[in-house]
Structure formats: C-alpha cells, structure tokens
C-alpha cells in the first residue's frame, strides 16, 4: 500500500513540475469542507426510528496538477448506528443488543481519500463538470456498551462481551460526478453525486456468489461485528449527494 501511495504521489508531483498550469486565476490549491448526504430510511445513528439523514463530513485539499486534473486529498468522518449485529450465539442462545438509552451500536468511521478530479474536455480545473475516482481508506470504530448483549438462557441474561470498542479497516472505491463553480474569484462551490463501493463488502458478496460459502462459519462475535460494520459502511457509502464549499488558497 505504501508503495502504491508513493507511486500516486510521484505521478502527481512529476506532473506538477512539468507543466505550466493555469489553475483558476493562477490559484491552484483549494481548501474546503464537503459533506455527503442522503436520506436514510433505516439504521440512522438513532437506530430504526423514522427517517433520518445519513451524512459524512470531509476536509478537502485539492491541487491542480494538470490543465484538467486536480489531485484530491480528503480527511473524512462519519458516524452512524448499527441496530443489529445479527444472530450471534452466546452459549446456545441468540444474542440481541439493548443499550441503556435505546441507542444502537455506534460506528465512527475515519477516512482518508486520495483521488483525482478529471474535468470535462475543453474545461480548465477547477471550474466545471468533472468525474472523480477515489480510493478511500477507512478506519471504523464500533463502540458499544459491553454489558448490554442480551440472551435467553432459561431467563433473560446479559452477556459480558469485549472491551466496548471494536476496530476494523476497510478500503473503498468511490466514483463521483460533479460540477464546480468559482464565486467571486475565491469561493469554490462543489456539488454532485457520489457512488461508493467498499472492498470488503464487494469481495465478500462476490466471494459468496463465486464460491460455496455454506460451510463457512461466521458466528463468532468478532466476525458478526465485522460483517455488521461492513454492511453498514457499504449502505452508508453506496450512494450520496455531495455538496462542498472551499476557497482558493494560492
């Protein structure tokens, strides 16, 4: 991975020195905030109650490296709830999660995105319509109240599980189509649609289609949590509306 990032950076900065790039009025670095939004019909951070909004926040650094290309670095964060981790067996009983305040498991995802914005033919970055492929590194932290897993063993009992926090890593590919405007020669407005596919979910699902997974047991607590985070992240990232604001720094 390190090598891959190194290669990306080399490719990027090799171009920077080789070209005379206009940017916008000579400004090539954009710093900004953006959010990915979509109405969530289930599994919001509040759980399954009603319709909510799923969203992610990001801090963006974009640098124009060629006439029609921006190199994009993104620090991103989103938080959501996981209402169920499915049928995990503790002893001989299925376990359900029941927090004290009714909140589901909380998933905090910290992401790093590396990508390129390719502006349409004839345009000059950073103005106009673009497409943006991006690689997303996700550090997902799922927090829960460790003594609120409930199971039935002749009577209702709480299972004493884990440390209260579970961390997974994931890799995603996103594809964004959007449009950027520059207002007052300084403010950059970015809007578009974003499609994301998480590698783990993709390979897991494709794997289960390609290979016989009926004998595969995933009934341990960790694997169920992995699975739940993977599916939740996949749902969260799959399709979003993208809105951003930034300024042209230099």
């Amino acid at each position: 991975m390190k090598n891959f990032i190194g290669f990306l950076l080399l490719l990027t900065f090799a171009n920077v020195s080789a070209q005379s790039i206009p940017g916008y009025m000579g400004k090539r670095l954009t710093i900004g905030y953006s959010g990915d939004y979509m109405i969530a019909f289930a599994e919001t951070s509040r759980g399954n109650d009603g319709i909510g909004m799923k969203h992610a926040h990001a801090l963006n650094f974009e640098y124009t490296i060629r006439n029609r290309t921006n190199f994009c670095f993104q620090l991103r964060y989103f938080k959501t709830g996981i209402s169920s981790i499915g049928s995990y067996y503790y002893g001989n009983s299925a376990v359900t999660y029941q927090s004290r305040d009714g909140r589901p498991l909380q998933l905090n995802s910290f992401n790093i995105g590396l990508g390129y914005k390719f502006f349409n033919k004839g345009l000059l970055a950073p103005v106009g319509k673009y497409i943006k492929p991006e690689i997303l590194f996700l550090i997902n932290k799922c927090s829960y109240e460790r003594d609120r897993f409930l199971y039935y063993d002749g009577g209702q009992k709480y299972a004493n599980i884990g440390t209260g926090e579970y961390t997974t890593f994931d890799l995603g590919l996103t594809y964004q189509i959007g449009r950027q405007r520059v207002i007052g020669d300084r403010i950059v407005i970015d809007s578009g649609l974003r499609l994301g596919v998480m590698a783990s979910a993709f390979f897991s699902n494709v794997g289960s289609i390609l290979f016989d997974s009926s004998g595969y047991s995933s009934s341990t607590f960790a694997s169920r949590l992995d699975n739940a985070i993977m599916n939740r992240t996949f749902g969260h990232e799959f399709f979003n509306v993208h809105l951003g604001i930034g300024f042209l720094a230099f």
Partner: protein
Amino acid sequence: MMHKSLFRKIVCIAITVLLFNDGLVAQYATDYTPLKSSGMLPEEFLRTARSLSEEDLKTMGYGTDRIAKQQFTISSNYFLRDLLLSGDVLVNDPLTNYVNKVADELLKNDPELRKQLHIYVTKLPDVNAHAFDKGFIFINAGLLAQLENEAQLAYVIAHEITHVVKKHSVNQYIENIKLDRGISTYETGSYEARDIAKYSFSKDNETEADAEGLVRIKESGYSVKALSGAFDVLQYSYLPFELVEFKKSFFEDEFLILPDTLFLKKTSEIKSNDDYDDTKSTHPNIRKRRGAVEPELVVADEASRKKYLVSEEEFKKAREIARFESCRLYLIDRDYVNAIYAAYILLEKYPENLYLKKIVAKALYNIAVTESNSNRNKPKYSYSVGNNARLNSKSYSIPDYEKIEGTSQRLYYMLDNLNAKELNIIALSYAFKAHKKNPEDVVLSALTDSLFSELVNSNELYMGDFSKSTKAQIIALDTAKVPVEAIDTTAEESKYSKIKKQQQKVEITTDENFTKYAFVGLLQDSEFVKRYKKASKGLTKKEEEKKDNLTYKERKKRDEQLAKENKNKYALLGIEKVLFLEPFYMKVKSAGGNEMINYFESEEKQVKLAEIQKKCADRLKLGYETVNTKNMTTTDIDRYNLNSILNDWLTERFNHGDNVDEMVVGTDEMKSLIEKYGTKYLAWTGVYNEKGRKSHNTYFFILFNMESGEVMKYETRFTKSKDNTDLITSFVYNSLMHVSKKPK
C-alpha cells in the same frame, strides 16, 4: 460669328475646368492619404444597442405584429450599432460631408425628414448602398467611385430614403414571418410559392423605392435626364471604374522586356446581361428596373434642372477620393489584380503618386509570395474562429482571366501566365524602382528587402542567374565569335555544333528568357547589388538544393519536427504588453431548428468579457491596452480611427487565412500604432454561446504579431456548459498566462 457673351461663358468654363483638373492633379500628384474620420463623434455612435432599442420600443405602440416589430427593432439596432463601431463608417470626412450636402439639396423642401436622416459613407469597395429604418443611410465608397454625376448620387440617396420612409425593412421582416407561417395575404400557396413570394415582396419594395426616389428627384432641382445612366452603373458595377487599355510597358523598362505572348491581343467583350433570372433575387433585374424608370425620366422643366447642385468640382473630387480609397479596399479584400488595375488607371493621371505605386508594389508582392508559397512543401496550419471558419486554409490564386470582361482581362492574363520566379522579379523590379524614386518611404524599402529575400530563399535566384549585359551586347559578342568559325568554310560543320549553335540562338532570341535580362539596369545600381548580396549572404544554390532534396518520409519527419518545435516555441511567449481589440460575444437561443440571437445579453456579456480580460491581464502583470469602443465620448475620434485601422488590419489578415507569407498591406499606419502602444501584439477574444436543450460554448483567443502578421497563439475551447463568468475567466486567464509567462 460667335456671340460675345457666349464666348466669354465658354472661356470661363474652360478656365474653371482647367483649373479644377489641375487642382486635382496637383493635389494627388505626389501622394494620397487614406480617409480618416475627424471632428466630434455623433451621439448615435455612443449609445448601446439596448438604449437605442428601449427608446424605440417605448414609442412603438400596441398595433398588430407588435412582437415581430419588437424583434426586428432589437436586432436591427444591434446590427446598426455593430456597423457604426465596425470602423467602416466614416465621420466628418470629405466623402460623408459631400454626400450630406447632396442630401441637403435633395431634401431642401423637407427639412423635417432631413433631420431624421443620418447619412454616412462606408469604407467598402462594393457598388452598393443600404438603409436602416431608423433613418441611417450608408453609401459605399465603391459606389461613389463608379457614379457619373451628382444627380445619380442624389437618386441613390432618394432611393434609400424611400426605404426609410416606407419602413421597408420591418415590413419585409413581418411579411417573411407571415409567409413562413402561412398567414400572409400576399401569397397563400405552397411552401415553395411562399418562399418565392418573399423575394417578390422585396422586389416590390425596390420597385417602389425606384419610383418614389424618382418622384423625390423630380421635386428637387436635379436633372432627371442625368439619371439615364444610373442603371448602367449597377449593371456594370463588376467592371473597374474606368476602362483603360492595359499597356505592357507598365512593368517594363529598358531591360525588363515582357514577351508579347503574355499579353492578349484582344480582350473579351463586355457581355453583361441585364435580363437575368431574378426569381430568387431581392432586387428586380436591371432591365425591369430600367424599363420601369426610364420612361418616366421626362419633366417639362428639364432645362432649368442641373446635374450638379452642390458642385461638379466637389463631385469629381469625391469620386476621385473614392477611387483612391477603392484601391486600398481591394487590397484588404485580397483582390490584388483589381487593386493593380485600379491603381494603373489612376497612375495614368498621377504617374508619380506614391500611394498608387505602393498599392501596385504591395499587390505584386502578395501575388508573388503566394505563388512561391504554393510551390513549396510547407507544413500547413489551419485556424477556425468561433463558428466562422475565417482563418482556415485560404490559398490565393489569380482569378481565371476567361471570366474577366473588358480591358482589365489583359492584366489578369499576364499575371496568371507568369510563374513564381517571374512574378518575384517583376515585383522586385517595380518595388525597387519605386523605392529609388521615394527613398524615404519605409514601406517600399521593407517590401524591397522582403522581395530580395523571397528571390533568394524561395525562388533560389542568385545574382549569377542574371545577365549583366544586354541582349544586344551578348549578340554582338556572339557574332564577333561566329565569323571566326564561319570563315573556316573548309571544315564541315558537325551535327552537334549545329545543335549547339541553334540552342545558343534560341537562348538569345527567345522571349521566354526575359528574366535573364530583367536586372541588367538594376545591377548597375550599387544599392541594388548591396541589398541583393545582403539577402543572399551565406546561402548558395548548392546548399538550398541539398536542403530540399528530401524523400517523402524525410520531409514528413521534418515537417512534424517543425510543427512540434513551433508548438513548443509558442507554448509560453513571455510577452510584456498586448493590445486588445473589442471582444466578440454572441449568445444564441436555439429552439425548434430556429436560432435567435439574444442581443441585449450579447452586448452586456461583451462588456463583461472585456472586464475579464483586464482583470486577468492585471493579475498576470501583463501590460494591457485596449481600443474598446464602449464608453466612448464625442471627443474620442482618435480611438474611433484606431479601431478602424485595427479592424481593417484584422479583416485583411483574416482574408489571408493560414497563408503567413502574405503581407498585411492595407494600411501603413501599423508602425506608428505599434510605437504608440509600445506593443506589436494584438489579441482578439470571443465567445459564442448557444443555448438549446443544453448549452454549448465556443471560446477563442487569437494573438497576432502586427509587424509580421504571424499568428502567435491560437486557442479554441468547445465546451458543453453554460457560459458562466468563472468558466470564461478560467479560459481567458489560461490564454493570457501563456502569452505573458516566460519560457524557462
């Protein structure tokens, strides 16, 4: 015996004519200065199309066809404003002043109407005049050059006044819409019939303008009989303004003798047909027009009427100026042979006129270099500006002489039958001789240098290729040798010596070899020799031959390399200052196959684009000069003239297309203009935006070197997006960045 008073009258007229003729000859004997506007700019030149339209719309009322009238008014004012600021319209110049005096005479009895009219002369060579319903009448210089008398000019003005008074343009516009929609009462038939009806409606308007114009003439003091030749002017408008036999001696001197075979013994007859098919013409054919008007050219008081109410002298002076001006306008139009012929006609009268000699030298130069250029394998570049492919490849060739009628055909034939080398030699000979007579003239001197360079670099003709001795001297030398052989009668002359003798004889006697002796006289001139040597310094024929002795693959590789080098060469130009022309902006709305120009927005966006240019240039610290005609005041006549010069230059340069060898020669003022602004670079930017279901933009930026005419940078961007300010800013900045940034 002649009556004493009549005799006195004749003597007076003769003296006036002599004085007048001498006056004109004296005035133009040595030079002519092209026309310029002067004085204060009229108010109507300073208003935007929007303000002109808003005023008209307020007074339009609520009658039928209101929307069509509104559309017409807006578009008409837009094009009127465009024309007023195009640089083609002359203000307070001798021609416009004279034409207005004629209009004053014509409308002496109708001062109210006179006040509503704005009459100007336009710097266009076509034999034409046109009017806007708003009261603007434009008479082309090309028409003035062809008229026979002042009464004819008055008739042309009267004809155009009828168009204005009767609102023919707007009526035509409304009728065309109705005919398109099938709701016109003028024609209710098929689509084809309605299409033809549009032309018929226009022809009816023209017939009415002819008739009403004649009525107006009859109401004035102008001679009606003098109009009998008015339609001849139109019929023969394609011919030069005079028919003068072209003499071969024009290009010749004692040593440069052109072969007789280059000159047609008989030129073709003038076959003009006045009864041509006018079904799809906006005007009735000449025979119909003449037939309708000439029977009416009878008035009882003809004897008291005059051909000239202003003055014959002023008419002839105006016509002469128009003729001088036409020579230059032909050059701008790339009509080189016509320019030479027009100058030739005037040179008969003013043989020492520098302006005319320069016209001939410039036209010859461009003909010669285009001919040389067509023989070379040069990499071609093509440019297209916006939706107009005006800078695309445009090769020049002399018009087919068979299509030319009258006396000028001889000149077309001659030039068409000369090859590149011969043309170069004739052009150089003419330019150098003109230069020797006018050594102070920098244009002639520069032309001479360029022709020397062309002779050496393109046509590979070195001093050794020309004879320093005359034909007679060589023959004398030859005959001096021949008797030695002739005396030896005992020896039998071999077949081969006979062949050689024959060849030698042919070489000396044939007219085809006239170029060999072309410079016999000039090679005696030390300046000629010095400049020729300077041009050929470091070059030998051998080297040149070697250079061009390439295979197809090698040449292709060389061309690719050259194109690559040129691309790199012009990537970053490091230019410090640029002169910006008023930008072009057009917004078009397309729906259902129809395109409508959004005039108001186009005008506003044009102003915005100029602001963007300034903003980007400032940010790049690129020196910014502009000849923008927006926000002019009445005292901005210099800016107006400057805009006119630059537009002339640009029009001519665009006419040359990708032919970079051709020199932009229509104006001699570029040098002083370059000095005034401290830059030789001229930039022109534009946007064409079409909004249909989606928006499309075409952006262009073009940078010229005004000294050489070279295109330094050419950029177009086609985008499927709205023409937002930020988008256009990014384009302009990018263009200017490449202009201003220095290459590493």
